[in-house]
């Protein structure tokens, strides 16, 4: 029996992949993302980068050359290698922070929407609180209190971005809750927990998944912003840190485009990739949204 289920899952995956292949946005986004993931994983292995290893003063802010394809930064470090290493951090922070945000947001949304009454009121007030809190001041304060390690950054971004998901999941749960098939499951004798996990969650999942992809884009951008503002983890290379140092060292005014352009473009491309993927998944998983 489980082999039949396995076959069905394979078939579903095949169907999904073929719809995906015909979706240009998705393919583009997927392509860019795969490129960056491969580069981030292999790059630092082939071209290792140590942020604490400075070059000589004379080597600072050199334009691209054969030995340094993207030039050097203000401390004489190779920008190209920095870029490769930075990908890892940006992607890792983005993905992990999103995982936290998604779990928290989905759990709160499901429980709040399904159980309703007092629980819903309390949870929604908390959600609203996080929703309207000015993000930047909050993040600054948290960073100041918790410190600027990469794990704290992941935590901070996760904690400040779950509220949107919670709201979205809650509305979907509210509407699903009234559907006749849920009434039927109740009539069979299922308890709340079973209903939420077995029936509400799978029906909410397409929404959550598409939402997650988009939040990942936001999370990567958030990390970049934080680092740019100087709140990032200084012990690790990240695109945001590169931008931070680039501006700090006056690379913009001195025309050292090779320093700030590459990380900027990298962030834009990755965020774009996730956004395209998010739209593509939304279209595929919610066929009603397909353009005629």
């Amino acid at each position, binding site marked *: *029996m*489980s082999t*039949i*289920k396995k076959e*069905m899952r394979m078939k579903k995956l095949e169907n999904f992949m073929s719809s995906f292949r015909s979706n240009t946005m998705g393919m583009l986004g997927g392509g860019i993302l795969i490129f960056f993931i491969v580069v981030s994983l292999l790059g630092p292995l082939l071209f290792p980068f140590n942020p604490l290893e400075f070059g000589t003063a004379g080597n600072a802010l050199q334009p691209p050359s054969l030995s340094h394809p993207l030039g050097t930064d203000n401390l004489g470090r190779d920008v190209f290698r920095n870029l490769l290493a930075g990908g890892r951090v940006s992607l890792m922070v983005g993905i992990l922070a999103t995982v936290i945000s998604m779990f928290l947001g989905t759990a709160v949304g499901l429980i709040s929407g399904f159980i309703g009454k007092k629980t819903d009121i309390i949870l929604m007030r908390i959600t609203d609180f996080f929703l309207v809190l000015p993000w930047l001041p909050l993040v600054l304060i948290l960073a100041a209190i918790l410190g600027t390690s990469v794990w704290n950054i992941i935590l901070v971004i996760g904690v400040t971005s779950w509220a949107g998901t919670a709201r979205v999941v809650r509305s979907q749960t509210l509407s699903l809750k009234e*559907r*006749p*098939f849920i*009434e*039927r*499951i*109740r*009539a*069979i*004798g*299922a*308890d709340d927990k*079973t209903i939420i996990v*077995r*029936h509400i969650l*799978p*029906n909410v999942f397409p929404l959550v998944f598409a939402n997650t992809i988009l939040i990942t884009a936001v999370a990567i951008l958030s990390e970049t912003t934080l680092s740019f503002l100087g709140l990032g983890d200084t012990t690790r290379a990240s695109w945001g840190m590169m931008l931070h140092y680039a501006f700090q060292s006056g690379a913009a005014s001195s025309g050292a485009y090779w320093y700030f352009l590459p990380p900027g473009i990298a962030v834009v491309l990755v965020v774009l990739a996730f956004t395209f993927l998010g739209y593509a998944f939304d279209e595929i998983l919610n066929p009603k949204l397909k353009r005629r």
Partner: protein
Amino acid sequence: MDNKEKIVSVKDLRVTFEIKQSFLQDLFSKKQKIVKAVDRVSLDIHRGEIVSLVGESGSGKTTLGKAILNLVPTASGEILFNGTPINFKHKKEVQAFRQKAQMIFQDPYQSLDPKSLILDAVAEPLEVNHLVKTAEERRERTIKALEDSGLAPGANYLYRYPYELSGGQRQRVAIAGSVILDPDFIVADEPVSMLDVSVRSGILKLLLELKESRQLSFLFITHDLSLAWLISDRIAIMYLGKIVEIGSADAITKSSVHPYTQALLSIMPIPEVHRNRERNVLQGEIPDPTEVPKGCRFNTRCEHAFQRCFEEEPGYTTISSDHQVACHLATEVKHD
């Protein structure tokens, strides 16, 4: 009939809902609007019997059906299942009750989880109640339930999704999901009203077969009096939360007393040409359920209404051993 064992006994049941008002309405109106969905209803269902609950929207028939299964909260009155009240405290008691009393819903397009395989949908009652131990047993019992519901070979349906099946097939899946627990009593809420006419009799035949083979009792909820006539032993006519007439299928269709029943019978569509058939198409519509008319609630549309009908709510008059009616006309007739 009275000597037969009662499987369900409803006594003086009241189910009310509050209407959610807008903020402004709340501010300006004095009292909370209440809908008396079920207004002091008593009903007995005997073992092996099919009782139909017939009424239009707002009659309270679906609410009554759900109340009997403990799916909506009740305001007052008593519901007994196999002699025991159903206001259970413990989860185990509730679960045991649910195994014996099941429901079939109206909309086959909405009553199955679109993301669940048929196997999972039908087997779920077993899992939720911890009635199966092995995957093999689960599969076997599901196949049997599907085949008992007319979907054979059952194995072919296990790994399909609801969207792959027609309305009639989906309804059979829903029925399979209900009978797999081997219940004693089923509430069928308009089980065929959303199906094509040509498919209906198949489902109705199935319900009758299940009644015979498994000694099931049914509460059949419908707005279609002709279906009720076809399938039931007894019919109860509901209007605005009250049973206005109840009797055997023959008594109701051949010798009804209540003007509402008679009006329903006269307008019933039949596949015959009756150009000048006497149809008593009632004027107006069912009154606002938050403002039930004083006296007999049918007085706003009844052509026979007289003084008493506007002052006093009629009690039940017994016409014969299995025929009761709530109408002042009946008592007048009796006194003649």
